[in-house]
């Protein structure tokens, strides 16, 4: 396919159509510019480590969110589910009484398993509501965010403080200068990217998001696949919540409010489309990195933090307008060119 293009054309086409690559270039450019202007304040291992540590929760969630958005659905309950995972793990570690049920302090792996299970269950309920009952994903997960968030608030309260040291080391240990959450994040992103691009089961997301009816007619079992994606999203939310709780040394019923909207923003900037069928995990990760890089740069440049939502909002608009106005037109033009080329070749063969 690319054989018909010159090298320059190919670079241009990659920059326009491959969002992960174009965002990577932008990220590198921002980092280079910031390093030039601010020197070691920006260009240091400490700052890099800080940026990567701070984006851990968003990046882990972005993987699951990309699966859902590729499938043409969305999950607004991830923030609540994240809090639930942390809160359940927290009470399992410390022991508590919930609904008259006495919970004895559990060993770390058991507590983590309960947290992951609870969040996955939240995801399962989302999945069943959307794919079996047929409720619109936005409304279903919005309603579920109240239930899950309410449960997290009840269980976790304002704070479960002083989580045991053997749990906190999971996130507070450094390896080669980076805290552990950075490695968890990279692992999730790598595995997530490979699954979505290489595994047959996950690739169904593209068909479902591209045209749900056509996917169902060609034998894809849509409801179980969608439900599985919501469960994965719930599991990742639980994981992010537990990693965050270990990092902070405490858990609460309302950690990271509104993170779902940040994650959706990053995924869309990273090339996802709410119409479904489009996007990949590398793009989602680059989107998260991009937003965090911008925010960090603004802080280092001494800009009032209240500018951040304004700038992120403007970038989001710019990204989607770029999608609609440039990328789509370019893709149509390229397809036309390819068709013309093919027709010319066919005409050549005919004579």
């Amino acid at each position, binding site marked *: 396919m690319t054989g018909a293009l010159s090298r320059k054309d190919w670079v241009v086409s990659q920059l326009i159509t491959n969002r992960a690559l174009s965002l990577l270039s932008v990220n590198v450019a921002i980092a280079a510019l910031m390093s030039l202007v601010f020197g070691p304040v920006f260009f240091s291992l400490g700052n890099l480590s800080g940026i990567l540590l701070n984006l851990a929760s968003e990046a882990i969630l972005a993987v699951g969110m990309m699966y859902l958005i590729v499938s043409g659905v969305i999950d607004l309950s991830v923030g609540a589910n994240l809090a639930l995972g942390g809160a359940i793990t927290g009470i399992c570690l410390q022991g508590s009484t919930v609904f008259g049920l006495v919970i004895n302090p559990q060993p770390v792996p058991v507590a983590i398993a309960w947290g992951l299970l609870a969040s996955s269950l939240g995801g399962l309920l989302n999945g069943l*509501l959307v794919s079996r*009952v047929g409720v*619109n994903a936005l409304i*279903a997960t*919005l309603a579920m965010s109240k239930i899950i968030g309410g449960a997290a608030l009840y269980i976790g309260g304002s704070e479960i403080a002083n989580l045991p040291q053997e749990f906190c080391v999971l996130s507070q240990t450094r390896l080669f200068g980076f805290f552990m959450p950075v490695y968890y994040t990279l692992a999730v992103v790598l595995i997530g990217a490979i699954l979505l691009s290489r595994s047959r089961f996950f690739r169904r997301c593209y068909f479902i998001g591209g045209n749900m009816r056509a996917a169902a007619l060609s034998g894809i079992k849509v409801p179980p696949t969608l439900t599985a994606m919501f469960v994965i999203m719930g599991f990742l939310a639980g994981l992010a919540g537990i990693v965050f709780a270990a990092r902070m040394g405490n858990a609460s019923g309302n950690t990271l409010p509104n993170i779902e909207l940040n994650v959706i923003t990053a995924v869309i900037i990273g090339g996802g489309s709410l119409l479904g069928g489009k996007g990949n995990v590398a793009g989602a990760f680059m989107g998260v990195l991009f937003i965090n890089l911008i925010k960090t740069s603004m802080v280092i440049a001494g800009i009032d933090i209240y500018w951040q*939502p304004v700038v992120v909002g403007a970038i*989001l608009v710019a990204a*989607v307008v770029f999608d609609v106005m440039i990328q789509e037109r370019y893709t149509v033009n390229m397809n036309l060119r390819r068709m013309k080329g093919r027709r010319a070749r066919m005409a050549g063969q005919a004579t």
Partner: protein
Amino acid sequence: MHERTQRMGGEAGAGMREVMRATLTNRALSLLILVVLISAVMTALYPKYFFNYYNLRQLLFYLATPAILSVGMVFLIVAGVFDLSIGGNLAMSGTIAAAILIALPTFPVAAAMLIGVAASTLAGLVNGLLVAYVGVNALITTLAMMGILRGVAIMLAKNPIGVSETFASVGAPFVLGFQIPTYYMVVIVLFGAVVLARTTYFRQLYYIGANRRAAELSGVDAKKVLLTAFVVSGFLAGFVGIVQAASSNAAIGIIHEGIELKVITAVIIGGGSLAGGRGTVLGAFMGTLFMLLVDTIMTIASVNNMYQPFIVGVILVLAVTLDVVIQKKLGAST
């Protein structure tokens, strides 16, 4: 005549079914019945606290903000889109007006208010241009706009800005025992209901929501009508922002964070569908009233704050599930 009376016996069951069906399909009506039932039960349980003038007055006052916003939202949801930026937009309008008056104390109050409303209307216009003309998804456009407008509002008013008495006079005073915003709400809801149900121009929103392509092919200027709906939503948010600042005597940057999701929920409970083509202003109003009533009841019944979001969530899930089930049943029986 004789035949008809004979058949009546057989038709009584069918007639009942028709009534049931009408009640189930007319969301405003079924919610009204539900609200009356709930109120009756609450009156019986808490005769002192629920059914009194003070409670009614406060309920209608708190209802005004979401109810006015729900009018703009139902216009959009009927057309298959929605607006997440109304919360940020209303905060921006109030803070712009108040900030102008702080910076220029001699500036006419009415003009400052108009500028605030105009800024919000303009934000609605930008939303509409991006969604209808550029073709960007409504969720993304208005999500981005939410960040931008909220950011502007917070920067203008990191701390609440007090407003003058003249300013407060458009929202604070009581007339005939009720606070002014209640009357704004009644007028806007009635006007919105008539406009959406009876005018040719706005009825086009239903065609656009049901099938935009078909609507365009049959001559509806979908872009223009959608743009109008976004402008209406922006204008109403701006208006609410001014009234809000006036009635609470201060413009606050972070006011009503997250109200957009509450309003969308109320419109959906009131019979709207995010797929578009369904919903009425009265339904949306009843949905808003129902949601507020649930909150009020939990406060009166002293339900622990910790449980409240959980209970609201359960009610929501039941409501949307029931809606889907009913729609499927009705769809199957016709």
